[in-house]
């Protein structure tokens, strides 16, 4: 391999700037990230599939466009990782499940097509909880992803792979999906940025659905501006998604740049009473309060708002989501694609028997739990009491948001109640696992946008915590503006990005790299 001359620790915006100025090439940048993957991913396991050849070919094409003075977009040539729940033609798409092992879609998700159109080389597909069901990436059928801050801890989930890839400099950008917090919570626990756009703001065509009325694709990055730039590439109307909003995506990068200037005068920031206090780790709350103070320093006005129905959000979510998922996952039946398992000891088994055996062998425990729970919630006799009631609670939550946004321009809370926990700690305790999404779920139920940005390290364990900014539907720009303002204030305070404090990845000591490399050797 040629010498790595490119600095992979800089932001996507900076890489794009260097590409535009001809200081580096996409091939060089892409190769540098592939090199990082080679060095670190044995330990982190952020990727399920790496497409070095494809990425380098796309990079070469990007360089040619730049050379011809016709870049396809501002991010042309900046490589990206894609969560394995998004269909990529010619690249395996497993959703972290055995049942889709080896499946290569014959089509691209709309967001993937937009990445390609904008010239972003796709480095590979990132690990995730099976079918995005989980908050730790431990439910991946292909083994967990590890948190780059502490390899014994979870990177969050379901998009732990995308967050860890970005946090360990194995990609400058990634795509995630967020059904109940799967972009934001991994962002919080890995010290990275994750944005869940307004429902309908980014096409879901080609996103293998967990819960169609909650799922949303969004950017995963290390800076707020990078998230905004990526959001502009993937967002906007798609006629292939009936729930896609027919409006332009908006000037999100401009909102981020404006926010970074640091003036939040006149911005009303609402603190949600119900998303604080009990169940939240002290260090997480301390960092939250500190961030809030910085927003006030920037000129924002802080108000307290109550959203009383939010206490029912988790219950509503754990009825709506499994109900939709149980139906979505019915298609995995061994007939048209994916795994086919023949039941043992059955002569000439029927289609029905093969379906049952395959679904038993191909789905993991968490998926089975949710399918059965969803089947129950939709059953006649239970529908009104459970699914019907959950849909009504969604209405109440939407009303709470509407009322809160009367008095506040954005709402804020800690993104996740705790920092990253240890691998295995909550694996067989579903309720404990589900509580991770307490603060992120309301946004999915109401369809509003939300961003998580790093708020610092908790005093107890020195691990990252996240600060969540929620905005009204279609006001995604407010998330970027307030998020960027806070990011700028915090980085001034820290003297640099939070990730510089990551022990295993500190470039000044190099010890982290060595540690990672050793693990790399062990794991492979």
């Amino acid at each position, binding site marked *: 391999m040629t010498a790595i001359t490119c600095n992979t620790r800089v932001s996507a915006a900076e890489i794009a700037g260097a590409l535009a100025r001809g200081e580096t090439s996409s091939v060089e940048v892409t190769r540098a990230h592939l090199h990082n993957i080679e060095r670190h991913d044995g330990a982190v396991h952020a990727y399920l599939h790496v497409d070095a050849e494809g990425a380098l070919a796309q990079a070469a094409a990007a360089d040619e466009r730049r050379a011809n003075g016709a870049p396809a977009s501002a991010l042309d040539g900046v490589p990206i990782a894609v969560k394995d729940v998004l269909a990529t033609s010619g690249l395996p798409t497993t959703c972290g499940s055995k049942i889709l092992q080896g499946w290569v879609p014959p089509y691209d998700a709309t967001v993937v097509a937009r990445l390609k159109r904008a010239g972003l080389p796709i480095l590979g597909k990132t690990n995730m909880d099976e079918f995005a069901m989980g908050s730790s990436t431990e439910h991946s059928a292909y083994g967990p992803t590890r948190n780059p801050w502490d390899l014994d801890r979870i990177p969050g989930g379901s998009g732990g792979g995308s967050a860890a890839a970005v946090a360990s400099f194995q990609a400058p950008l990634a795509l995630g999906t967020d059904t109940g917090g799967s972009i934001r919570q991994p962002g919080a626990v890995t010290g990275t940025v994750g944005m869940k756009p307004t429902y309908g703001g980014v096409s879901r065509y080609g996103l293998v659905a967990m819960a169609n*009325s*909650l799922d949303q694709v969004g950017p995963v990055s290390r800076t707020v501006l990078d998230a905004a730039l990526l959001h502009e590439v993937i967002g906007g109307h798609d006629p292939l998604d009936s729930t896609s909003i027919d409006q332009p995506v908006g000037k999100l990068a401009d909102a981020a740049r404006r926010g970074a200037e640091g003036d939040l005068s006149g911005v009303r920031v609402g603190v949600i009473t119900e998303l604080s206090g009990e169940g939240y780790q002290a260090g997480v709350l301390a960092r939250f309060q500190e961030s809030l103070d910085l927003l006030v320093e920037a000129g924002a006005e802080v108000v307290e708002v109550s959203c009383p129905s939010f206490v029912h959000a988790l219950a*509503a979510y754990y009825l709506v989501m499994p109900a939709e998922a149980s139906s979505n996952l019915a298609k995995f039946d061994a007939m048209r694609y994916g*795994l086919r398992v023949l039941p043992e000891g059955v002569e000439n088994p029927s289609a029905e028997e093969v379906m049952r055996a395959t679904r*038993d062998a191909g789905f993991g425990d968490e998926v089975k739990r949710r399918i*059965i729970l969803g089947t129950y919630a939709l059953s006649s006799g239970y529908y009104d009491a459970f699914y019907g009631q959950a849909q009504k*609670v969604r209405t109440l939550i939407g009303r709470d948001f509407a009322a809160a946004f009367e008095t506040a321009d954005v709402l804020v809370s800690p993104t996740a109640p705790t920092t990253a926990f240890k691998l295995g700690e909550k694996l067989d305790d579903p309720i404990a696992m589900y509580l991770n999404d307490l603060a992120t779920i309301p946004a999915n139920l109401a369809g509003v946008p939300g961003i998580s940005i790093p708020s610092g390290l908790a005093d107890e364990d020195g691990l990252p915590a996240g600060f969540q900014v929620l905005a009204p539907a279609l006001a995604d720009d407010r998330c970027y503006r307030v998020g960027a303002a806070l990011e700028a204030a915090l980085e001034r305070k820290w003297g640099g990005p939070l990730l510089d404090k990551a022990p295993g990845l500190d470039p000044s000591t190099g010890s982290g790299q060595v540690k990672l490399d050793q693990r790399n050797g062990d794991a492979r």
Partner: protein
Amino acid sequence: MPDTPGAPAESGGRVQITREEVAHLADLARIDLDEAELDHLAPQLSVILESVASIKGVAGDDVPPTSHPVPLTNVFREDVVTPSLTPEQALSGAPESEQQRFAVPRILGDEQ
């Protein structure tokens, strides 16, 4: 949407899901759970159901359900033919194929 012919199985305000019920649901969902899995999953599902059961009665009859978070209506496409996959693409993921068709094990029972 469906009528409610029977109330959920409850005792003392607690929702319990029996092992038999889990087996029935797994059957509806076409998952061949073995005995050990049933033993493992049934109590977990009971715990989950108990925690979500708090939702009952939260919203009254006057609250309309939300099935779609963004209130769009009438999203239609023109009746225009667009290119299909090639049969090779369509069958590319098939566990087995024959005569340009998906080969599946023998089908019991009837269409609905």
